[in-house]
C-alpha cells in the first residue's frame, strides 16, 4: 500500500464515483423477482477522475453549483461512502460536520446529548468531560442545559449541536454548509471560532455557497463542475472566475 506524504492531510488520486439510479427502486423480494428482467439500472457518474492533494494546515473551499459533486466528495473523504475507482488517503484525526445533532435523543437532557453526539465523533468519556464546560459555554444555553432537548427551540437545538461539533478536536475538519446557524451574534461567533481553528494549523475543507465567507476564511478554492475540477487555486481568482461564469 502506498504511504501518504506526511506533509499532506488528504491525497486523492484518479477518483471515480457513480450512483445507481433506478426509476422505481425494487425494495421487496417480490419486486426483485418479478422485475428482475426489465429492471433498468442506470448509473450516473458524479465524480470523474478527481486527483488532488490538500496539505496540512490548508483551508480549502469547495465551490460549485448544485449537483456538481461537492458533498459527494466530502462524504468520500469521510469514508461514509466508498469510491468505485481510485484512492483516498487521509492523514490525522478526521471529523466531518455534515450533520448537526447526529444521535440526539429528544428525551434526554442537553448535557446527556452532548455525550451522545460527541461520542459519535469518536471521543472518549474523559475527552468529553474536559470539553464539557467549553461546549456549554459556547452554546450559551445556561441552565437550559439540564432540560430535555425536546423542550428546546430550534435555535437552541442548533446552537447546542454546533457547539459540540466545533469543539471536537480534530486535525482535519470537513464542513458542509452548516455555518448559517442561529442569530447574527451566534453566526459571528462561529465564524470567529473557525478562524481560530484555521490559525491553529488545522486542515479545513468547507463546502459552501456563501462566497463572502469563503474569501475571508480560505486561502484556496476548488471549483467543481459536473464532477470534475474546473479550477483549483488561489481563492480570489477562483471565486472571481466562478462568478463570471455562473453568477
Amino acid at each position, binding site marked *: 500500500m502506498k504511504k501518504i506524504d506526511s506533509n499532506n492531510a488528504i491525497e486523492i488520486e484518479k477518483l471515480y464515483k457513480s450512483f445507481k439510479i433506478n426509476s422505481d427502486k425494487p425494495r421487496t423480494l417480490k419486486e426483485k423477482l418479478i422485475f428482475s428482467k426489465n429492471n433498468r439500472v442506470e448509473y450516473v457518474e458524479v465524480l470523474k477522475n478527481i486527483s488532488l492533494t490538500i496539505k496540512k494546515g490548508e483551508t480549502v473551499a469547495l465551490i460549485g453549483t448544485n449537483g456538481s459533486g461537492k458533498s459527494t466528495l466530502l462524504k468520500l473523504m469521510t469514508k461514509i461512502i466508498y469510491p468505485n475507482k481510485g484512492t483516498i488517503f487521509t492523514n490525522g484525526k478526521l471529523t466531518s460536520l455534515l450533520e448537526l445533532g447526529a444521535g440526539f435523543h429528544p*428525551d434526554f437532557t442537553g448535557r446527556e446529548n452532548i455525550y451522545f453526539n460527541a461520542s459519535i465523533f469518536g471521543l472518549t468519556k474523559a475527552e468529553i468531560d474536559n470539553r464539557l464546560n467549553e461546549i456549554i459555554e459556547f452554546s450559551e444555553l445556561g441552565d437550559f442545559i439540564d432540560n430535555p432537548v425536546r423542550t428546546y427551540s430550534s435555535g437552541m437545538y442548533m446552537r447546542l449541536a454546533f457547539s459540540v461539533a466545533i469543539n471536537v478536536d480534530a486535525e482535519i475538519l470537513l464542513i458542509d454548509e452548516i455555518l448559517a446557524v442561529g442569530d447574527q451574534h451566534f453566526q459571528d461567533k462561529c465564524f470567529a471560532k473557525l478562524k481560530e481553528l484555521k490559525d491553529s494549523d488545522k486542515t479545513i475543507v468547507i463546502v459552501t455557497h456563501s462566497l463572502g465567507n469563503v474569501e475571508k476564511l480560505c486561502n484556496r478554492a476548488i471549483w467543481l463542475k459536473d464532477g470534475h475540477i474546473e479550477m483549483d487555486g488561489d481563492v480570489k481568482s477562483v471565486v472571481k472566475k466562478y462568478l463570471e461564469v455562473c453568477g
Partner: protein
Amino acid sequence: MSIFNELYHYRELLKTNIKKEIRGKYKGSFLGVLWSFLNPLLMVLVYAIVFPYIMRIKQEHYLIYLITGIIPWNFFTTVVTSGCNCVWINGGIIKKVFFPREILPISVVLAALVNFFISCIVILLFLIFGGVGLNINIVWLPLIAIIQAMFSLGLLFILSAINVYIRDIEYLVAFFMNLVFYATPILYNASMFPENYQFVLKLNPMTHFIGAYRDIFYNQVAPNFLTLLFLFILSSIILVIGYSIFNKLEKGFAEEV
C-alpha cells in the same frame, strides 16, 4: 485485528448507545427503567393465569418450567426481531457521520443482555418463592448468556445487513421466529414432541440453550459442558461468518438506506 481497536476507540459511543437503548425506551414513563423488571414479571403473570388452568400440562412446577424457557427465549427474539432493522432505522446518521457500523448491532445485543440479566431477577424470585429454591449452579448463568449473546449477534449481523438491501427480511424473520418458538421446548416438555420428529428439536440450537438454563434453574444441576462447548463453537462460527457478511455489505449502507 483492527475491529477491536476501532471498537475500543469508539467505546464511549457503544456505551451511550446501550444507555439510549435501555433508558431511552422507558424515558418519559412514570416508572422508567423499572419497566425492564416489570415487563417480564407481567408477562409471567399472563402465562401463570393462562397455562395451568387452560392447558393442564402435568409438569411439576410448571410455572417455573415455563419462565425459565420464556425469559431466555425473549432475550433471543428481542435481539433478532426488533434488532433486525437497527441499521435501517439509523439511516439518518449513517448517511452523515462515519463511525464503525458494527456498533449498531452490538449495542442492540448488549442492551438486550443487560435486560436479560435484570429479567433473571424475576426468575430468581420465582425460584425462591415458588418452592424450588436456589442452588450453586446459577453461577453458570453468565457463561450461557454470553454464548447465547454471541449466537444472536452473529445472526443479527447477517439479518440487519441484508435487511438494508431487502426489506422483506424483517417480516420473514418475524414469521420464522414464530415457527422456531414452537420447535423449541418452551411451553411443553421435549418428551411430548412426536418421536419421529425429535431430530427437529435436536437440530435447533435454541433447544440446547433453553436446556442449559433449565438445568441450572429448574433441574438444579450443572449444565452439560459438552453441549456448551458445542454451542460455543457453533456461535463462534456464526459470529465470524456474520461479521464478514456485515463487513462486506456495510460499504453500501450509506447509499442504500
